[in-house]
């Protein structure tokens, strides 16, 4: 690997939902042109973090530097500009059901570019081919399987040839073969288009296949940040638990559990 340059830097990020603190002053960097995986237990704030990285949510305090610009301090117009460089695939693929796949993929191109429609049509077919959906241009989302919808969502996320791709659990609900296919595609995008890719995932095989760099969250803190090799040898108990697939140790004492279910 060549020298590491940071595409994203997060400094002392604090976020709340109402009074509840979700991320407690976290700092980390995302290397450019690599795949960074975000790990952590359910509810620890991974999706919340991702929404901050794409400027969908504003932090309570702290900086989020994308290509050295602090998106936490940008106005909506500036954010729109930077968002054109970002492709996003969230937990539901979020396709518009009233439109064909071709129109779904064409939408960002029609909104943000002055390209002729004849050019856009060719680009749409290129993107659908890339995700293995050649020939499905005229299908509506309701006519697709879950995995196909996910891939169609990816085709749309890539419409504007983004510099960054953000995925929230891309392989959730997919069979292992389809999930592995998606992993291969992620690596292809990294290698050919030099994209900076950030993926939230729980899938251990996927982590080992795609990750160059890993960030692990726990209880609102970063407990690990490093390369895949560093992850493998980490002694951190949360990391060991994840890698060895050990269940959560008991959170409650029997007395607390009794009080909890008894409703006092």
């Amino acid at each position, binding site marked *: 690997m060549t020298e590491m340059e940071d595409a994203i830097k997060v400094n002392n990020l604090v976020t709340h939902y109402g009074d509840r603190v979700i991320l407690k002053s976290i700092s980390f960097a995302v290397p450019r042109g690599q795949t960074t995986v975000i790990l952590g237990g359910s509810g620890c704030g991974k999706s919340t973090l991702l929404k901050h990285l794409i400027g969908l949510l504003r932090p309570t305090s702290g900086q989020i530097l994308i290509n050295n610009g602090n998106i936490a301090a940008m106005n909506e117009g500036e954010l729109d500009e930077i968002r054109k460089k970002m492709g996003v695939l969230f937990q539901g693929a979020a396709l518009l059901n009233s439109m064909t796949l071709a129109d779904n993929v064409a939408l960002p191109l029609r909104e*943000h570019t*002055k*390209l002729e429609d004849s050019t856009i049509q060719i680009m749409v077919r*290129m993107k659908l081919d890339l995700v293995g959906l050649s020939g499905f241009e005229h299908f509506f989302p309701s006519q697709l399987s879950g995995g196909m919808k996910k891939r169609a969502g990816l085709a749309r996320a890539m419409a504007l*040839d983004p510099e960054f791709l953000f995925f929230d659990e891309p392989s959730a609900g997919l069979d292992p073969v389809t999930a592995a296919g998606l992993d291969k595609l992620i690596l292809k995008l990294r290698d*050919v288009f030099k994209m900076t890719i950030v993926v939230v995932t729980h899938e251990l095989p996927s982590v080992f296949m795609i990750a160059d760099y890993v960030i692990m969250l726990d209880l609102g803190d970063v407990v690990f940040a490093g390369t895949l090799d560093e992850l493998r040898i980490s002694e951190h108990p949360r990391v060991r638990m994840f890698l060895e697939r050990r269940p959560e140790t008991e959170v409650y004492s029997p007395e607390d559990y009794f009080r909890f279910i008894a409703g006092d």
Partner: protein
Amino acid sequence: MTVTLKEMNGKKIMALAGEIDMSASPLLRKELMALVKKKTDPLLIDFENVSYIDSSGIATFVEGLKGMMAFGGKLKLAGMPSGVKEIFSFSKLDRVFEIYGSIDDAINS
């Protein structure tokens, strides 16, 4: 991106420089399709000073090639830096386009 039209040994060359991205492709299309419409044959494209091409640029050349094929004209792409070539190869289009190592190779072809 800048577009320069030249002629060498009686062959028309469109020399491109800079980044061929979504904001540049409409201009590229205009210039390219004008030459296609005039049935310029062969039409050589010099990529030597192109630093980047995105999917809108590739799609524009697909349109150009379609237009050339319609009248049996030859579109020859030459002098691609490796990063640009890689993007053409990735989309399997390196086997559809006539690609030459240098503009001289394309002129002498």
